[in-house]
């Protein structure tokens, strides 16, 4: 047994242990922390499977962003104490049964694989050069499954609309209720002044390098969102109200450019979301840049939560 397989087995045991403790732990805050650790361990597992793109996304979204969203939810639950009625037994039972069914389905898929595993990977690698991209994951996302990628971004905006629609009518279009820790001389202020320039460079790098190597719009956008949130939480920038025009423009610019290029493809390349020959890479990079901005704003606003007040305090 090599050192690497010992490492892998240890990693799997850790992931299972942390996963179990996420469910078993009684307190919501501890469960969220365990979930974040679970996401980080999972991203190491993806690296071991040589899926660095997935690892980056898992660390950024699964560990970081989802963790932050759930911490926000825990804080809200604490504020809304008193009406925390326990979920009834039939509901819990049906949730348990559904989870067990999903687990059983996944287990059969993994334990009893088909004789020949269907794969299009060789075909992708053969034709990747035509798109001018070096990263096969970016190739699949933007050339072969572009429609899925487009809809994924639209879903992000729908999710944000879902969060916004939790706002009461009186504060619609107001300012999200992000908790701000504005203390002018705190170390958090220092971090919020020092880190964003670095973070923005890293985000641009991740987005740019995504065409050639692991990286891309989602990873870059998450870093942008994190920097924006840091600056807002430290109180260096005000949380904008959701009716601001620039905010809404930034939100839709990615999907709109993607859609426009897709529609132009119907005329220039005879298919929706097809690229004219020779122009694939510049168009994809343009879409990725616009998407990075949109994803950054959408994730930042998702974490900021529904509008809670109209006037700036």
């Amino acid at each position: 047994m090599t050192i690497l397989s010992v490492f892998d087995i240890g990693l799997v045991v850790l992931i299972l242990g942390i996963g179990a403790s996420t469910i078993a732990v009684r307190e919501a805050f501890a469960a969220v922390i365990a979930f974040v650790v679970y996401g980080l361990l999972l991203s190491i597992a993806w690296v071991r499977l040589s899926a660095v793109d997935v690892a980056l996304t898992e660390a950024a979204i699964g560990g970081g962003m989802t963790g932050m969203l759930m911490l926000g939810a825990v804080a809200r639950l604490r504020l809304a104490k008193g009406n925390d009625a326990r979920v009834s037994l039939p509901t819990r039972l049906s949730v348990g049964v559904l989870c067990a069914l999903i687990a059983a389905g996944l287990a059969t898929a993994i334990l009893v694989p088909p004789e020949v595993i269907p794969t299009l990977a060789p075909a992708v690698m053969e034709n990747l050069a035509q798109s001018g991209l070096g990263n096969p994951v970016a190739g699949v996302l933007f050339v072969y499954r572009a429609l899925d990628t487009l809809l994924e971004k639209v879903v992000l905006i729908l999710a944000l609309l879902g969060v916004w629609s939790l706002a009461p009518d009186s504060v619609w279009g107001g300012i999200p209720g992000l908790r701000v820790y504005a203390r002018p001389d705190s170390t958090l202020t220092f971090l919020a002044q020092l880190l964003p320039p670095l973070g923005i460079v890293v985000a641009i790098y991740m987005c740019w390098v995504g065409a050639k190597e692991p990286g891309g719009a989602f990873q870059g956008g998450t870093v942008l969102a994190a920097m924006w949130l840091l600056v807002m939480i430290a109180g260096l920038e005000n949380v904008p109200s959701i009716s601001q025009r620039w905010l809404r423009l930034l939100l839709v610019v990615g999907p709109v450019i993607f859609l426009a290029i897709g529609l132009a493809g119907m005329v220039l390349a005879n298919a929706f979301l097809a690229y004219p020959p020779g122009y694939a890479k510049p168009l994809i990079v343009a879409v990725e840049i616009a998407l990075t901005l949109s994803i950054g704003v959408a994730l930042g606003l998702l974490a900021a939560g529904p509008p809670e007040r109209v006037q700036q305090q």
Partner: protein
Amino acid sequence: MNLVFDIFTICAVSAGAFFFLAGTVGLLRFPDPLTRLHALTKVDNLGLGLVVLGLLPQADGSFSALKLVSIWLLVQLSGAIVTQLIAGAVRQRGPRG
């Protein structure tokens, strides 16, 4: 020459792993939040620093080496600041806050 680099890597990464172990034991065994934070800083600074130092000869090209060093610096920065924030919260609201 390669052998020398490899031995250096093994020594430095092992020393780094030792500090990770010591920091983790401290995190588990120390009695109150402030001393536990104190134990954690050893992991950030020395543990990760030694691991990065050990990996430098193995990096392909100076760009990768620069990335490794900047990861260490960023972890140092965030570690130091998060430690300060937690310590501040502990001082304000008490260890059970």
